[in-house]
């Protein structure tokens, strides 16, 4: 295979990014639709190139870039997340008076970073991808320049992100010093000194920051709340997926190693328990819709971590796939429900939505119910896979905590449904009915959530293939 095709997906993304940024500079028009079109086309083209590589196990740069099926599957997820975020953003940016063309370029760059991050087993390359993503994500969070919250969000994200980056870099230094390699599969055999183990721990902590696991989650709700909603939708889905996959690549080699397994995995099990409990109970106390969903995304990370602890790659990939549609769908519904010009939504603002706008209310309800884990939606099947894997791996406690915190989550997810369908409004809900792009995204999410819950056969086949490469 020629080097050209191997690099094609990344090359497409980078070229697209440059095109969008140049077009923004030279295009004097206020209409940014051409930028959106170029970005979407870029994502589609990159997706096609990635599709051509499926099942071929292509490599480049002496194995530093590895397109195993897992990497490609994740690449599809990131491309989709980016495309959804752009669709959600097109009209939102205009309404929020922050119609900056940079949004599109930065979004492409963020996607590129995440793709690099997962398409390798070398931790240094992981770090490279992470930084590409991070730098663009700080700018994305602060895109709404005149809004204090958005700026605060950007600063907090930057601080915590640099912190995490520092953890990882320092960890890598120690690891390399102790183990003489940064290839994840080679690490278990190479790590002999406690110095290298400390390095590994630091890397894991750095990733935990990025995924927003308790206790590394502190500022994430503020970031999620302050960032523009389409960006938040991207943040809760894509970087989480990347972080988890890197974590899994790092830990899978250890799953065979009995002794070390105990220490690392019981540490992670503890974190999973803490994340599930704290995320769900914190969400219980919120009244602001965006904060509820922010904490919910932290809680969901706890469930995903169970899959890592249970050593079940296909369960994790299924959960991530499903959460792509749930996270995007939930924040997308928020955008539609906010109507023109409003971003911060209190629960009470939703009263009467179910009566006036049964379609959007209904779709949002399905997504919430799926987040809570009700069958026959994908959310249930995702939890089913993860919890049953935990029980099979002997982590009964994790499954128990998982279902009990799910019960807590039922309360706050359904509370949103209650307000939409069962409360009478003081004033008419302001729903944006003229945003076809958002509706398109919502319909796709609805379809995907039901498809994943009822007839997951095809996607499960793909996932099994992808999971085999871990």
């Amino acid at each position: 295979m020629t080097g050209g095709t191997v690099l094609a997906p990344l090359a497409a993304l980078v070229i697209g990014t440059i095109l969008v940024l140049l077009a923004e500079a030279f295009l004097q028009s206020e209409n940014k639709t051409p930028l959106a079109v170029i970005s979407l086309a870029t994502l589609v083209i990159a997706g096609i190139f990635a599709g051509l590589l499926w099942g071929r196990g292509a490599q480049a740069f002496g194995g530093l870039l590895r397109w195993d099926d897992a990497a490609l599957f994740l690449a599809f997820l990131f491309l989709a997340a980016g495309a959804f975020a752009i669709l959600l953003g097109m009209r939102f940016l205009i309404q929020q008076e922050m119609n900056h063309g940079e949004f599109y370029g930065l979004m492409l760059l963020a996607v590129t970073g995440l793709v690099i991050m997962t398409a390798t087993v070398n931790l240094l390359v992981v770090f490279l991808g992470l930084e590409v993503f991070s730098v663009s994500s700080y700018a994305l969070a602060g895109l709404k320049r005149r809004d204090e919250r958005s700026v605060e969000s950007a600063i907090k994200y930057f601080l915590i992100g640099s912190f995490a980056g520092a953890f990882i870099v320092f960890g890598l230094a120690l690891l390399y010093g102790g183990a003489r390699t940064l290839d994840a599969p080679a690490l278990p055999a190479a790590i002999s000194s406690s110095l290298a183990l400390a390095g590994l721990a630091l890397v894991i902590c750095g990733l935990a920051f990025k995924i927003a696991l308790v206790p590394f989650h502190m500022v994430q709700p503020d970031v999620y709340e302050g960032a523009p909603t389409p960006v938040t939708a991207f943040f809760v889905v894509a970087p989480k997926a990347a972080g988890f996959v890197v974590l899994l690549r790092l830990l899978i080699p250890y799953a065979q190693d009995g002794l070390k397994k105990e220490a690392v995995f019981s540490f992670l099990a503890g974190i999973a328990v803490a994340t599930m409990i704290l995320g769900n109970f914190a969400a219980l106390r919120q009244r602001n819709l965006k904060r509820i969903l922010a904490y919910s995304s932290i809680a969901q990370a706890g469930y995903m971590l169970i899959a890592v602890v249970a050593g079940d790659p296909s369960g994790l990939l299924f959960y991530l796939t499903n959460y792509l549609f749930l996270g995007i769908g939930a924040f997308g519904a928020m955008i539609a429900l906010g109507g023109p010009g409003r971003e911060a939504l209190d629960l009470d603002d939703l009263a009467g939505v179910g009566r006036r706008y049964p379609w959007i209310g209904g779709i949002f309800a399905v997504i919430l119910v799926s987040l809570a884990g009700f069958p026959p939606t994908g959310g249930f099947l995702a939890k089913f896979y993860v919890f049953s894997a935990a029980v099979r791996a002997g982590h009964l406690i994790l499954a128990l905590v998982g279902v009990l915190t799910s019960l807590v989550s039922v309360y706050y997810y359904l509370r949103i449904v209650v307000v939409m369908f069962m409360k009478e409004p003081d004033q008419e809900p302001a729903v944006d009915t003229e945003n076809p792009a958002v509706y398109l995204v919502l319909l796709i999410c609805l379809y995907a959530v039901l498809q994943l819950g009822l007839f997951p056969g095809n996607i499960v086949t793909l996932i099994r293939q992808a999971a085999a490469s871990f």
Partner: protein
Amino acid sequence: MNAPLLSLITFLPLAGAIVLIFIPREEKRRLYVTAMIFAAAALILSLIMAVRFDGGEAGPQWVERSAWIGYGIHYHLGVDGISLYLVLLTTVLVPLVLLASWSSIRDRIKEYLFFMLLLETGIIGVFLSLNMFLFYVFWEAALLPMYFLIGIWGGKRKVYATTKFVLYTMAGSLLMLVGIFVLQSAFAKATGTFSLNIFDLYRLTLSPAAQTWLFLAFGLAFAIKVPLFPFHTWLPDAHVEAPTGASVLLAAVLLKMGAYGFIRFAFPLFPDAVARFAPGLAVLALIGIIYGGLMALIQKDVKALVAYSSVSHMGLILLAIAAWNLESLEGAIVQMLNHGLSTGMLFLCVGLLYERASTRLIAAFGGVSRKMPVFAGLFLIAVLSSIGLPGLNGFVGEILCFFGVFAANQVWAIIAVTTVILAAAYLLGMFQQVCHGPVKNDRVAGFKDLSLRELAVLVPIVVLMFWLGLFPGTLLRKMDATVARYVSLVKNREKIFVEADRTTAAPNLGGRKNAGNAEGQR
């Protein structure tokens, strides 16, 4: 038997719900007619199923089985003597409930019918599933429509009531979900293959400790649903706030899902634990019988009274299940039907009164029989059926229950008989206050007797009550074989195993051999 009869019965209502989406919300009549057509189609198919059902066969019939997700998860439906009549009860009641809702639901009719049909699919699926995963999916899927039915069309405290209902039910069923994972994992360890087929899982021998925990997990889910004392507190709230149609289905069929769960899953899966827990279960059931009856005596709201009477009656059903012999189990199943018919009808009657008076307080009525003689007559039949008057359906079920329980434990039986006395006291007392005496006030004076539509709702139930009361044999014949098999499944566990071993040849104690069966044709 080539047509997927059971799938059709299960999913016709769902298809109806989807069709409803595309009908404009202003066209009330078209919405109702569409919903009725699909509900009636399910009814007709289920009648065909009942008539052609072979009572001599103990195993499930019209079995449909196809691969679905993996990990032992199959799409697997079948009907046997236990589920047959519960399905029929559902398909009979739903069209009647829809008919009854014509005048009582004025707001958001489209959504109401949508959720009703969704609910029907969920309930039927619960009774027909032979795969634990599928069962759980339907079990939860039946929960949400009821959540909306109470939450949108309910009374003043509807949000509180419906949230309580969902959280209580979920608390139980989520623990059951973990139980399912444990079963799945235990089966995989024992045989090397995955199976959630209920008949495969019956063959699994678990350690007594594991059985104890699993029985508690499953038992809690079902006990909350039944509801067994002290897990019943959600029921009065839900009933009082729910609209009539939802109340009817809640009492008549949803509660049966709990009792059905005990019969189908909790008891036969964990026979060792049953030996330990059956007496405790019986005591709770007895407390429920008396407590429910006493609470019903002091209620001021007719609907709350009927709700507490449900707690009492379901206590008897559970007691009969705990006794676990042929008579008691058949009694329990028959009584489930009876309770569905009589309590369903009582709720319908209360709903008719409420539509006329906008109140349900017993004290607000009096002399109703003078203004509404036909209604009073039908109402009385429902009351008498609920008390268990010979000649009506209630009697057959109760007497079978008592026989069975008496054979198992005489003290239980003697205490349980109080249910009849209490029921007579609270139901007849209520009936007397509401219907007899002079016309109490102007409101009652303005009551109109039943319309043709309302008669069409009540008369079929009355006919069924007499039919079941006078000719119970037809009913029992079709369930004998299945029930006998389930009785021995718990009582004579070893024997079943020996037989099973012989049929599959190879004298092997579990282990690999079962593997072939698990994924093979059943």
